[in-house]
């Protein structure tokens, strides 16, 4: 299925892009992160990230659907 990914902060720097559309066999964020972390060389362990699907925070086992927009959130530093 096709998934749209948005990247922020150091993940965008490392990926060299702020978004991409991927055709993936991953069915949940856990597997999807393993796939893209390998490809882009992301150093964050999943424990340090949060995941959002379609602009809402979800768990790592959330079932992905075709057309979903997924964001892996590195630790935040607002304020």
């Amino acid at each position, binding site marked *: 299925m096709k998934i749209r990914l948005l990247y922020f902060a150091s993940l965008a720097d490392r990926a060299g892009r702020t978004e991409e559309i991927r055709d993936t066999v991953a069915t949940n964020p856990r597997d999807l992160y393993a796939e893209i972390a390998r490809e882009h060389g992301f150093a964050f362990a999943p424990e340090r990230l949060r995941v959002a699907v379609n602009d*809402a925070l979800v768990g790592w086992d959330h079932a992905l659907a075709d057309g979903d927009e997924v964001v892996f959130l590195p630790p935040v530093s607002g304020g």
Partner: protein
Amino acid sequence: MKRFALSAAPIDAAAEKAALEHPAAGGCVTFEGWVRNHNEARAVTRLDYQAYGALAESEGAAILDEACRQFALRAARCVHRTGALAIGDMAVWVGASADHRDAAFAACRWIIDEVKRRVPIWKNEHYADGESGWLHPSGDPVGPA
């Protein structure tokens, strides 16, 4: 008027504070975060804030709603900047009004702590030595992940 907002333009603190007024409120507490010229012993020259807009707005709104349920407030608001900021610029404004100052202090502190902990906004610090880096949880710049 939304209780939490992102703003690409300078924050109008006076207008935000005016929105906290209530005839039963005995006072208000505000916190302003300013861009300071140092962090962890490094000289900082400027910052960029990047936000995941849709989630930042909903998470910020959830924090303000939670504050209004947890504390005996008359009103509470928060605005966070995005984009390029210089030393001295206001990065974030938080305000809470209440009948009694205990609630206003506690809520203002709780809101800024939760915003810093939960709202998806990231700071890229630019240093006097020409380096820069995105700040992630501990405050350590991590460069590219």
